[in-house]
């Protein structure tokens, strides 16, 4: 079985940990808990690949997250559909770590369950397209497109 290192990238409180929990444990907690440093989760897919998911915190601090990205096989960019600034953060991270561009990646635009709060402009789609061609409107709370997004990345890794 091959192991693949996947890094969750996104600004503070976009729902990275919730997405991982939903995917790995099929569980969602309303209560928000900040991730300190990094949280590791694993999930076996297709009995041939094991995803080692690095849920990384601290993207607000310059360079502090970089050691965690080393050796990654794939990237999951996470943006908040209600916070356009979260997309800009992703662009900043990629600008700071251009090697990420060479990695297979998908982007989760999260919190789609909060329909009334969604604040999204077409320009943001352009920004997402600069990161990856594979984006998914997800909800960790409802599980919408979460499994689909991880499966898409798995295919990109294989």
């Amino acid at each position, binding site marked *: *079985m*091959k*192991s693949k*290192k996947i890094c969750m990238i996104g600004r503070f409180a976009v729902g990275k940990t919730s997405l991982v929990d939903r995917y790995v444990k099929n569980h969602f907690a309303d209560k928000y808990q900040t991730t300190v440093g990094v949280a*590791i989760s*694993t999930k076996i897919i297709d009995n041939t690949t094991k995803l*080692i998911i*690095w849920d990384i915190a601290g993207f607000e601090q310059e360079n502090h997250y970089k*050691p965690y990205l080393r*050796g990654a096989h794939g990237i999951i960019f996470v943006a908040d559909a209600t916070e356009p600034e979260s997309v800009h953060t992703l662009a900043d991270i990629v600008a700071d770590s251009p090697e990420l561009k060479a990695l297979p990646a998908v982007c989760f635009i999260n919190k789609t369950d909060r329909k009334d709060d969604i604040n999204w402009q077409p320009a943001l789609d352009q920004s997402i397209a600069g990161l990856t061609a594979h984006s998914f409107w997800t909800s960790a709370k409802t599980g919408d497109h979460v499994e689909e997004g991880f499966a898409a990345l798995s295919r990109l890794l294989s």
Partner: protein
Amino acid sequence: MSEDRDKLKSLLLGEEIAQIKAIQKLLDDRQAFTEKVSQVLDNAADQTIKQNPEFQKKFSRLDPKALTRAIKANQKSFIDAMIPIMGPMIRQSVANAISKFVQDVNRAMEQRFSIKALRWRWQAYRTGISFTEIVFSNTIEYQVQQVFLIDKESGLLIEHAGHEDALMQDKEAISAMLTAIESFVQDSMGHDGSHLSAAKLGERNVEVISGSQANLAVVIKGAYTPRLVDHLSAASEQIHIDFASDINDQNTWNNNPDLKVELENLLVTKSQSDDEESSGVNFWPWLIIALLLIGWFSWRTYQQHKALSETRLQLAAIDGLVVQQITPNDDGFLVTGLLDPLADTSTLSADIRLATQPYVSLDDELIANRVRLLLNQPDLEVEVRHGLLTLTGHFDDVQQHRLQRQMLGIIPGISQVDDQSTARPQPPDLNQQLLNHLQQHPLPEYLKLQVIDEKIVASGELMVSDVDDYWQLLNQHFEAIDASGLTLLNASTQLKSITSEPLNFIATNQLSPAQQSLLNQKAAAFLTLHRHNQAKQIKLIAQSDCQGSLQESNANNRKRGTWLAEQLVQSGVDRSLIQVETILCEQITTTVNTDLIGVWFEVNR
């Protein structure tokens, strides 16, 4: 011919000839050739290594001489380059050494005085291994439970060994987390090249051995020494050498049986109980028994040696005994050898038994004993020294002594005789001396002198008044007079015993027993005085209190005197030596006074 050939070559080869010349020129031009080769060298090396990984070792081989020359030529550059590497290495090495030293001291102090430590000291003495090494190898208890080989960059697991059931999370998550923690620590604490080397949770420790490509993380339960970490470091280095290509090839990760076996070899368990069992036999009780036996044999040997020494001393003190062999037996020693019949063996203790043959000893003391036995003269002093016989003192019989001296020549060991002895002067006959003395100084009456066992023995009676005169005279003529049988008499004492006390009795013919005894004493005293001419007569004076009638009182007085005189005669006093006087009453008294009734005594000298 040659021109034809050149033409033929130009027709056949044409442009190729120019190319060959260009190639030849390139080969001859060293600079141009070097530049050309350098353009393909990198790709050629990569392709060669890809086809033959062993070929890489040739590239990595260093020429020590070239390296030495380079260092000598530019030391400062090397120092600048090495300091960032060496600094952390030195600090880590010192820290490890101090940690190891502290642990060593603690363990050594804890084990220093235990019984087990004695056994380990014996083991150290027997094997030549240092005591510290023995202590550590016997006291540590640990178990290497999990071994992770983790890609240094990605944190992905390269290979794992150990029971996965014992893990709270899956092995990939753990390897990722360890890497994340290391990154976190490095990010938090600094970037000086140091790395996470150990973590501890409860009784489990995680040792992280940092390698160039991969980290070796080992979960250890229990206490272990830095030696184990050294061993793991060596193993990590060897794995990097033996599995260099596998470590870089992600396709082989988690699917490399050879590497897994290598990691499983690191899953070791060390326990004290294993050490005890591995020895097979618990030799400690046997050691105690052996020590007790050795102690008992030593004590017994010491006692035998001590007894033997004492026996030798006793035997050496005996003149005339030649010891040939001393054999210990159950209750003492059996001594065989030669013994002079005149030797004195009475001083030997009871546990020494002699089994000897008789012989004639030439010891001076034995020769002297032999001379004494021959001469048999108690007052003759015999001394033998280096063959010289010296005789001093007295001998009794001159003729016999002369004969005996002639016989001394037959006694072995005597070469000279120095006879300083003299014949004993014969003492005068004591009986004759006594007779002569008595002729000149007649004995007082009732004193008897006789010679018994060469001694004057005095017996009989002697008045004190005679003692001063006659006794001094005797002592002047004779030594040692035995006077134990002589009774000394004092005349005044005797006289006083007669006259000092009257016999008061009322009846005219009866005395009480006490009065009768007193009368006998008076009679004996008088007879003694009379024998020694100290008294001529005893006078009895009878009187009364004159109470009643004069006639009756006087009659009773006479009766008492007469009757008491008769009693004295019966006591041995001659009647002629007794005088009785009666004091007549002249007038009658009315008062009875028994102290006035009786007989009073006087002595006429």
